[in-house]
C-alpha cells in the first residue's frame, strides 16, 4: 500500500487544480483575500499556496467539511505537536535541492546511482525520526484524520522494513562488477537490459548462464584501448541505467511523500496561525454549521470582515444576518456606509466555512454553495479598448458562463457605469436570470432605481438590507434590515470633505 496522509480528505490527497477559473483572480482581489492568506502563511510560501487553494477549491460535501473541522479541532488542541511534525517534513525536504542537481545534464547512470544512494541514506534517517514521532504522540490525537496518519506511519515504517532499505543501499555500490542481460532489439542492438544481483555464495558463471552449463565466450579490452574503455563504461551504464532510475525515482517518491505530508499539514498550520492572529486582534472565531444547499440557510451573529480586522489589528464592526430562504440579498444605502465590508465578510465566511476552517463571526450557519463569484465595478482602465460598461458586461458574461445553480454571486455597484435607468434595467435582467436558476446573489448598490424595481415586484425571496445612518447623517457602518431610501448620500460625503474637513470619518 501507498503511504498517504489524507489529512484534508478522508479518501484522497489534497491536490491543486490544474485549471483555475478565470473569475477566481477577480474574486480574490474583490474579497481582499491576500490579507487573509498572508495571516495564515505567516511567511511560509507553502502554507500560502495551500491556504489559497483550499479557500478557492471549497468543499460542498458536509461530511468532508466536518472531517476537516474535526482535524482542525485536534490541531488546535495539540498545536505544538502539529507544528513539530510540520517542521520534521520541512527538514527532510532540505535534501530536495541536492536531489535537483541529479536531474541536470551531463549525468551518467553511474553518477545518478552514486548520488541517489547518498541521498537515500539521509532520507532513511528522516523516516526513522518520523516513526519515532508517531510512536510518541499518537495517543494524544482523536480525529479520524490524525489517528489514521499515525497508525499508517507506525505500520509501514517498521524496523524490518527500514532494515531492508539499508541492505539495498549497501548492495547498490556494486563492488563485484555488473551482471546484466539483454535481448536483440531493432537492428540487433541490445535492448531490455536487466540487472541481476550477484550473490556472493554462488559461482557466478553457473548462476548467470544457467545450470545446464551452456557455453559462454569472453574477450578482454586491452588497457591501452581508450575507446574500448569508454564503450565498456557506456555498456556498464546501460546495465545499471534502470536501477539508477529506479533508485532516483524512489528518492523522489520519498521526497514527494514528505512534500505531501507538508502540504496536508500546511492547511492546519495556516489555520493555527490565523487563529492566533485574530485572537491577538481581539476578534472572535467560530466553528460554523454547514447545511445542505436545499436547506437555503444563511444566518449569522457577529459576522465581520477578517481581512479588515487583521489589517487594522483590532476588533471591527460586526453584523447579524437572517437570510434563510432568500435568493437575493439587496444591500442599499449610504456610500461608504460599510456595504462593501459587509459583502466581503459574507463572501469570506462562505469560503472559510467551505474549506473546513472556522469563520470570522460569533455564530455562522449557511448552506454550502457551488463557487463564489464577484462582480465589482472597476476603476477605469486606460488600456481597455472597449468602453467601461461594455467591459462590465464582458465580465458578467464570463460569470454567467461559470455559475451553476447553487453558486453565490456577489455584486458590488455593478452596471453603474451607464445611465441609471439603463443600468437598473440590465442589472434586473441579469439578477432575476441568476436567481431564477437557483443562484444566490448579494447585490450592493447605492442606486435607488434597481432596488425600487425589486420592491415593486414584492418577491418573498429578496431580503432588503440598509447601511445604517443616524439622524445626524453620521454612519455606524452597520448593515440592518431596511427598505431602500431614495436620497443619495453622495452629497454628504462631498459636504464633509469640502465644508467640514476636521470631522472626516474613518471606517471602523
Amino acid at each position, binding site marked *: 500500500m*501507498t503511504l498517504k496522509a489524507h489529512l484534508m480528505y478522508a479518501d484522497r490527497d489534497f491536490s491543486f487544480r490544474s485549471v483555475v477559473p478565470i473569475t477566481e483572480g477577480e474574486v480574490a482581489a474583490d474579497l481582499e483575500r491576500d490579507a487573509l492568506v498572508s495571516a495564515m502563511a505567516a511567511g511560509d510560501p507553502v502554507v500560502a499556496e495551500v491556504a489559497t487553494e483550499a479557500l478557492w477549491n471549497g468543499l460542498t460535501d458536509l461530511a468532508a467539511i466536518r472531517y476537516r473541522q474535526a482535524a482542525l479541532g485536534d490541531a488546535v488542541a495539540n498545536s505544538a505537536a502539529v507544528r513539530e511534525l510540520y517542521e520534521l517534513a520541512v527538514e527532510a525536504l532540505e535534501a530536495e535541492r541536492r536531489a535537483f542537481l541529479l*536531474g541536470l545534464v551531463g549525468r551518467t*547512470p553511474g553518477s545518478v546511482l552514486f548520488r541517489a544512494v547518498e541521498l537515500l541514506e539521509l532520507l532513511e534517517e528522516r523516516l526513522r525520526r518520523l516513526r519515532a514521532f508517531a510512536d510518541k504522540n499518537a495517543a494524544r490525537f482523536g480525529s479520524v484524520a490524525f489517528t489514521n496518519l499515525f497508525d499508517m506511519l507506525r505500520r509501514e515504517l517498521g524496523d524490518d522494513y527500514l532494515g531492508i*532499505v539499508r541492505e*539495498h543501499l549497501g548492495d547498490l555500490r556494486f563492488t563485484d*562488477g555488473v*551482471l*546484466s542481460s*539483454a*535481448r536483440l532489439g*531493432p*537492428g*540487433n542492438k*541490445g535492448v531490455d537490459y*536487466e*540487472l*541481476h544481483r550477484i550473490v556472493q555464495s554462488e559461482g*557466478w*558463471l553457473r548462476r548467470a*548462464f*544457467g545450470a545446464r552449463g*551452456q557455453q*559462454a*565466450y569472453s*574477450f*578482454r*579490452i586491452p*588497457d591501452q584501448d581508450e575507446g574500448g574503455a569508454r564503450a*565498456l563504461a557506456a*555498456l556498464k551504464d546501460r*546495465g545499471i*541505467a*534502470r536501477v*539508477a*532510475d*529506479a*533508485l*532516483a*525515482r*524512489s528518492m523522489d*517518491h520519498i521526497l*514527494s*511523500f514528505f512534500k505531501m505530508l507538508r502540504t496536508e499539514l500546511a492547511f492546519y498550520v495556516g489555520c493555527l496561525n490565523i487563529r492566533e492572529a485574530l485572537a491577538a486582534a481581539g476578534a472572535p472565531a467560530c466553528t460554523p454549521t454547514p447545511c445542505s444547499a436545499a436547506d437555503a440557510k444563511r444566518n449569522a451573529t457577529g459576522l465581520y470582515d477578517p481581512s479588515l480586522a487583521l489589517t487594522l489589528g483590532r476588533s471591527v464592526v460586526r453584523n447579524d444576518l437572517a437570510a434563510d430562504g432568500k435568493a437575493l440579498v439587496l444591500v442599499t444605502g449610504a456610500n461608504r456606509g460599510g456595504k462593501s465590508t459587509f459583502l466581503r465578510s459574507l463572501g469570506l465566511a462562505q469560503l472559510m466555512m467551505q474549506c473546513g476552517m472556522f469563520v470570522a463571526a460569533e455564530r455562522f450557519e449557511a448552506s454550502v454553495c457551488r463557487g463564489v463569484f464577484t462582480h465589482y465595478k472597476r476603476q477605469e482602465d486606460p488600456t481597455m479598448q472597449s468602453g467601461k*460598461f*461594455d467591459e462590465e*458586461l*464582458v465580465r*458578467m*458574461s464570463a460569470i*454567467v458562463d461559470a455559475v*451553476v*445553480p447553487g453558486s453565490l454571486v456577489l455584486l458590488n455597484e455593478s452596471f453603474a457605469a*451607464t445611465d441609471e435607468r*439603463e443600468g437598473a434595467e440590465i442589472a*434586473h*435582467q441579469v439578477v*432575476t*436570470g441568476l436567481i*431564477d436558476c437557483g*443562484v444566490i446573489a448579494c447585490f450592493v448598490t447605492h442606486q435607488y432605481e434597481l432596488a425600487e424595481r425589486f420592491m415593486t415586484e414584492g418577491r418573498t425571496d429578496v431580503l432588503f438590507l440598509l447601511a445604517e445612518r443616524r439622524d445626524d447623517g453620521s454612519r455606524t457602518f452597520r448593515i440592518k434590515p431596511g427598505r431602500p431610501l431614495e436620497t443619495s448620500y453622495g452629497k454628504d460625503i462631498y459636504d464633509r470633505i469640502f465644508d467640514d474637513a476636521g470631522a472626516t470619518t474613518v471606517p471602523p
Partner: protein
Amino acid sequence: MELARERRKPATNGSWITGTPSMTFHSILYDRSAPAVADMGATPECIRDLNIDQIIDAIVRGREEYDLAPFFLMPLATMEAVGYRHEVMRDLQEGAVLECVAEFADAMRSTRKILAHSAKLRTHQQTRLFLDAVRAYDAAVVRLCEKLERSSAKSAGLRAFCAFLAAYVQSEQFRARTSASGALLRELDAIRYSVRIKENTVTVGRYEDRPDYSDEVARTFEKFNQGEVRDYLVAGRDSIEMNHVEERILALVARLFPATFAKLTEFEEHHRSFVDATVTRFDREIQFYLAYLEYMNEFAASGLSFCYPHVSTDGGDSAVRDTFDAALAKRLRDAGREVVVNDFALTGGERVLIVSGPNQGGKSTFARTFGQVHHFASIGCPVAGSAARIALFDRIFTHFEREERVESLRSKLEDDLLRMRDILRDASERSIVILNEIFASTTRSDAYWLGRQMLAKILRIGARCVCVTFLNELAHGDDRIVNMVSTVVADNPAVRTFKVVRRAAGEPSYAATLAEKHRLTHDLVKARIRS
C-alpha cells in the same frame, strides 16, 4: 480561352503494377477523367501577388520529403475531378479514416528511415534492419487495408485504393514474405543473452530468466509513491549504430545462435525489392489531403471555418460567405489578433467588383481573398468561408503595385500599361483579373480615365474582375459592376472594421443592444445557466 492540357508522366515516375484488374490503381489525386497533370492556372507572379505562395508554404511545411507544392499549384479542369478530391477529403475528415491514413504515413516514413540506416551498416546489424523494414512496411499495408475496409470511407478514390490493397495483401508473394519474416522475428525475440563486465573482461553467454534487480529496488520503495516523478533514466544514444565493443558482443551472440543468424542473411537475399510502386505513390499523394486538413484545423481553433465550394465550370456566379485571407489570418492568429471575415458575390450578370474606401481598410486583403478562394477551389480543396459557390476559371491574372525596378528604362506608368496590355491580350471570358491600385503612379484624372478604359475592355472580354482603387467614382451605372467599400466604425472613423461591404453600415449601440450582444437578458442568462 482554350485550355491547353498536356499529358505528362506522373511526377513520381512510378511504374505501377499492371497485373490483374483488381491489382491496378491510378491515383488518389486524379480521377480517370482528369489528366494527370494540368497547366498552371495562375502565373507565378499571381501566386506571389495573392500570397498563395505563403499559404502553400504553410500547408506543406514539415512535409518537404513529399514535394507537395506542385499539387497545390495545378488546377483541375472538370467538376468530376474536383468532386473526386472533395470526396476523399470528406472521408479524411472522419477521425477514424484520417487516423489510419496518418498511421500508415508514419509507418512508411519509419520504413524509409530504417532502410536508409540498413544501407550504412554491417552484417548482423544490416540484415536485421532490413528485416525490421520489411516488417514495418508489411504491417503498415495490412493495417491500412484492414482499417480502410472497416472504415466509413466511401469516396471512389479510397474505395478503389482499398480494393487494390486487399488484392495486394492477399497475393501469394506478400503472404509468403509476411509469414517468413514473422517466424524469423520470433526466433530473434526469443534470444536473451547475458553480459558480465568485471574490470576489462566481458563475458557473453546464454541466459535463463532471473529476477530484475531494478524491479526489486523499485518495489521496496513503492509505498512512498505519490504520483508521477521525474524520469532519471539516462537515455542511451539514439543512434542505432554500435561501437566496437557492442559489435564484438553481437558477434558472440551470433556464435551462440548460429542457425538463426544464417536465416537472417538468407531473408535479405530473397526479398531485396519489396516496396510496391502504387503504394509509394499513394503514400505521397495522400499527403496532399493530410497537409490541407491539418492546415484547416489550425483555423478551426480560432473559429474560422472552411467549406466545400459548389463548383461550376460555366464561368458564371461566384459567391462566398465569411471568407478571409488565409495568409493574413495565419499571421494575425500567430500574433493573437482577431480575423475579420467578409462576404463577396458576383451573381447574375455581375462581372466586376470595384473596391474603394479608406487606406489600410482591408481592400487589398479582400482582393487577395477573392483570388485565393478561386485558386483553392480549382485544386479541389475546401475554401475559407462558411458557404461558397465558385465558378472555375482558365487563368488568374493579377496586377499589383510593384517596387520600382531600377534597371527598367520604362516609366512606371508605361510599365503598368504594358502589363495591362499583356493581361488583356491573354484573358478570356473564363479568366479572373485582379487589379490592385492600378495606375497609382499617375495623376488622379489620368488614373480615372485610364481606369475607365481598362474596365471597358475587361467588360468587353467578359472576364471576372476585382479592382481595388482609391478612385471611388470610378464606376457607376452599369449592372455588371458592383461597388464595395471598406468600412470604419460609425462614430469613430479612425477605427477600421476591415469589413468590406456592398453598402456602408453601422448603427449606434445602446445599453440594451449591448446586453443582447453579450447575451445577458433575463431569458438568455437562464438559458445559459441551464444548458
